[in-house]
Every structure is written in structure tokens, then in C-alpha cells.
């Protein structure tokens, strides 16, 4: 068990080192973009264009903070020329991959926790700039929906991570010709999720201004729907993880 957590720790270290390598000019662009986005949001909050529910639309998109990096995390063993160490470790390749999954998931949880802080800051800003729209009652409803969305997003994140791993592992295997099919599958999954969350849940069926109001579908997410979604997400993740492990163990050479 000790070696498993060492592998998880190494995954997190690799992830961190990648972040540190980001060029300073790129960091300036990111900071500028963040300031611009925050300024636009504050402006919209002040003018009453957006309400508390709007911010929640960003929560499902947190999945992409797991999907992209998980492709790089496995691929980095090849690009960093460490793959011969990694694949000759005396542990089943499923365990090597699972350690990466856990490491990536812990990293993603930190990002999700950061997003909660950002939402809380915007809630405070909203109450300050536009107390008519950003009432305690509206924020209470938004918080209840946010909890459900976070739970669904957390449940869907292993799916995004395993999908990223599958893409990366397949790319370095004898099954590379299957890459277009796997990419189409990933795009289909992503667009389905976005379509479901953004259009179904956030669309205002009453035909009024879409964003400041709660869609009936969004407020009526019931426990059964939640449990079904979580179980389905984890089931799919297990299947994809099994496929990635099989490809790494049986179809990959270094």
C-alpha cells in the first residue's frame, strides 16, 4: 500500500512540475483574462444582467480541468523518457494507472475546492453590488443547486480522467489506429454532457430571459436522478479504466 501512495505522490509531483513550467508570458495572459472575466461579471452583476444561478453554469465545465491534464499525465511518461522506469515497476499496470487516476482526482478536487471559494466571493460581491437580485433567499436556492451540481460533477470526473487516460494509452500502443474512434467517443460524451447540463438544466422553459432564472429541470434534480447518474458515471468509468489497463498491459510496448 505504501508503494501505491508513493506512485500517487509522484503523479501529483509531475502535475505540479508541469504547472511550474508554464512560461511567465503565458501567466500574464491568464491573469489578464481572469481580470477581464471578473470585471465583466462584476459589471453584469451590478446591472442585474445575471443572477446567482448563472455562476453555477461553470461547475460542470470543471470536468475539463480533469480531462485534458489526464491525457498529458500519462503521455508525459513517454515524452519525459521515464516510461521504461514506469512500465518496469513490479506492479500490475492497472495499479500504475490507478495511481495516476487517484493522483489526478486529488489534484482536481483542489481545483473544485478553489472554484467553491471563487463562487463564495462572487456571492459576496453580488450581495454588495446588487442586493435586490442577490438576496439571501436566491443565494440559498443557488447553493442547494450548486451542491447537487458539484456532486454530479465529482461523480463524472473519474469518467473524464479515465477517458483522457484511454486516449493517451491508446496513442502509445499498437491500437493507435483506433484513436479516431476513441476521439469521436470522447467528443460525443463531452457534447452529450454539455448538451444535457447547459441546455436541459439551464434553459428557461418559461421563455423569459434565460440566465437569471432557475430552470424547473435544474431545481427538480431529485435524489433518484442523482444516484442513477453517479452509479452510471462510475460504471462507465470502470469500463473505460478496464479498457485502458488492458491496452497498457497487453498492447503497449516501450
Amino acid at each position, binding site marked *: 500500500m505504501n*508503494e501505491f501512495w*508513493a506512485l500517487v505522490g509522484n503523479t501529483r*509531483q509531475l502535475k505540479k512540475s508541469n504547472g511550474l513550467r508554464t512560461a511567465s508570458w503565458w501567466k500574464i495572459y491568464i491573469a489578464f483574462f481572469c481580470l477581464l472575466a471578473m470585471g465583466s461579471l462584476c459589471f453584469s452583476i451590478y446591472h442585474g444582467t445575471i443572477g446567482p444561478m448563472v455562476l453555477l453554469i461553470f461547475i460542470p465545465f470543471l470536468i475539463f480541468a480533469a480531462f485534458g491534464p489526464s491525457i498529458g499525465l500519462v503521455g508525459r511518461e513517454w515524452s*519525459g523518457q521515464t516510461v*521504461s522506469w514506469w512500465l518496469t*515497476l513490479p506492479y500490475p*499496470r492497472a495499479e500504475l494507472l490507478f495511481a495516476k487516476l487517484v493522483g489526478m482526482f486529488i489534484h482536481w478536487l483542489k481545483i473544485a475546492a478553489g472554484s467553491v471559494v471563487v463562487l463564495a466571493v462572487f456571492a459576496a460581491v453580488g450581495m454588495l453590488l446588487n442586493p435586490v437580485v442577490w438576496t439571501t433567499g436566491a443565494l440559498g436556492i443557488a447553493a442547494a443547486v450548486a451542491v447537487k451540481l458539484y456532486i454530479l460533477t465529482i461523480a463524472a470526473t473519474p469518467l473524464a480522467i479515465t477517458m483522457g487516460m484511454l486516449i493517451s494509452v491508446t496513442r502509445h500502443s499498437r491500437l493507435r489506429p483506433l484513436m479516431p474512434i476513441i476521439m469521436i467517443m470522447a467528443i460525443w460524451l463531452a457534447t452529450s454532457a454539455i448538451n444535457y447540463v447547459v441546455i436541459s438544466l439551464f434553459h428557461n422553459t418559461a421563455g423569459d430571459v434565460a440566465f437569471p432564472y432557475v430552470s424547473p429541470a435544474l431545481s427538480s434534480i431529485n435524489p433518484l436522478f442523482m444516484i442513477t447518474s453517479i452509479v452510471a458515471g462510475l460504471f462507465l468509468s470502470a469500463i473505460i479504466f478496464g479498457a485502458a489497463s488492458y491496452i497498457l498491459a497487453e498492447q503497449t510496448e516501450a
Partner: protein
Amino acid sequence: MMAINLENVTKAYGSQRALDSLTLGLFEGQVTGILGPNGAGKSTLFKAIVGLVRPDAGRITVLDSRPSWKTNGQIAYLSDQCRWYGSHTVQHSIDYAAAVFPHFDQKRAEQLLASMGLNRDVTVGTLSKGHEARLKLIICLARDVRLMLLDEPFSGIDLVSREKIIQGLIESFAERKQTIIISTHEIREAESLFDQVVFIDQGQVVLSGEVEALRQEKGSLESIYRGLFQ
């Protein structure tokens, strides 16, 4: 007792045969040099032993088992083109190796660090090629395993680093009875290490035998190499 046995092992990359019906047996407790020109199949042979490549045909037995992650618990393998994790410090590398490699002797690693002159606080990504090679070798030598595979451990390394590494190898061999297989182009410097040598070309064994017997019969290993491959 055989440490490694290959029977008619073939491995091709496209139309290029890296191993061509290779048959080879290496005894336990000996230091074997695998010598041959570039593209002879040396690295593919090492990779097949640790399961990084699968033969298209033939049979490989390593320590009485088929190559797998289980046998890798008893093998320390240093690839010719590998790098260590650039974000680690030297100390973190040793700690990580101690956590993930069974039979890792941390005390031995500390001794080797001192004798090879590596600063434990330096980040691997900032090390010179020679210093990184020393670190990779320390990680292999500190493992108390039955089989050690070193693929080009001196490649691209300056003379001083090479001498340090060879000294480290000699000390390691003196202390432990391991089966060690080294592929190298630095024949003159490394030949004192070998008990036996195997010359490989185009995926096949062209000559093999005890070093002393070959020396008496055909001269130095370097002259035999020139005779075979020039």
C-alpha cells in the same frame, strides 16, 4: 543455473528484425557483456527480458518465469534512453525509489551518493547528463536484486563520470553475488568487469564465451570486436 534463457526469439519492427531467432543462455552469478554495433538488437533484447516488448516468436525465461511485472521485482533495469523524473531532487529520487522498488537498500544508496559526489538537494532537471547517469545507476545498484540489466550505462558520459560509475560497479559486484548484464560500446574501459561476453549482430549471436578463454584464443575484446564488425 540459468538466469536468462532465450529460445529462437524473434522481434521485428515492420520489416526490420531486431531479434532474429536469437538463442542465448546466461548463467546466474556472472557479469556478461553484450557487445555489438548500433542496431544489433541489444536494447530490444534487454526490453524483451523486462517485458517492455513482446517477442513475435520464441520463448524467454527469466529467473525461471516468463517476463512480467512479477519478475521485474527481482530485476534492476537501466534503459539506454531513459531519463529520471526532472522535478525530483536527488534526495526525493532516492526516497521515491525506496518506496516503489522492492529490496531497495537506502543505506547503500546513501553510500553511493557520497562516493559518486552527488548533491542530494539538487533538482534532477538541472543535473548534467553525467550526474543524472550517476543517479540512475545509483538507483539500480542500490537494489538488492538477482538480476541487473544495464543498457549503455556509459553512453555520452565524460571520462571522469565513467570512471566513477565503473568504480561503483566494481564495488557493487564485489559486495553482492548478482547476475549482471551490461551492453556498452566502451569495451576497453568495461572489459575488466566481464566474466563472459556475447557479440550480437542483426539480432543474432555471432560469438560468445568466457572472456579469459576468448582473450587467449583471439586477443583483446576490442580486437575481436573490430574483427567481427569492421
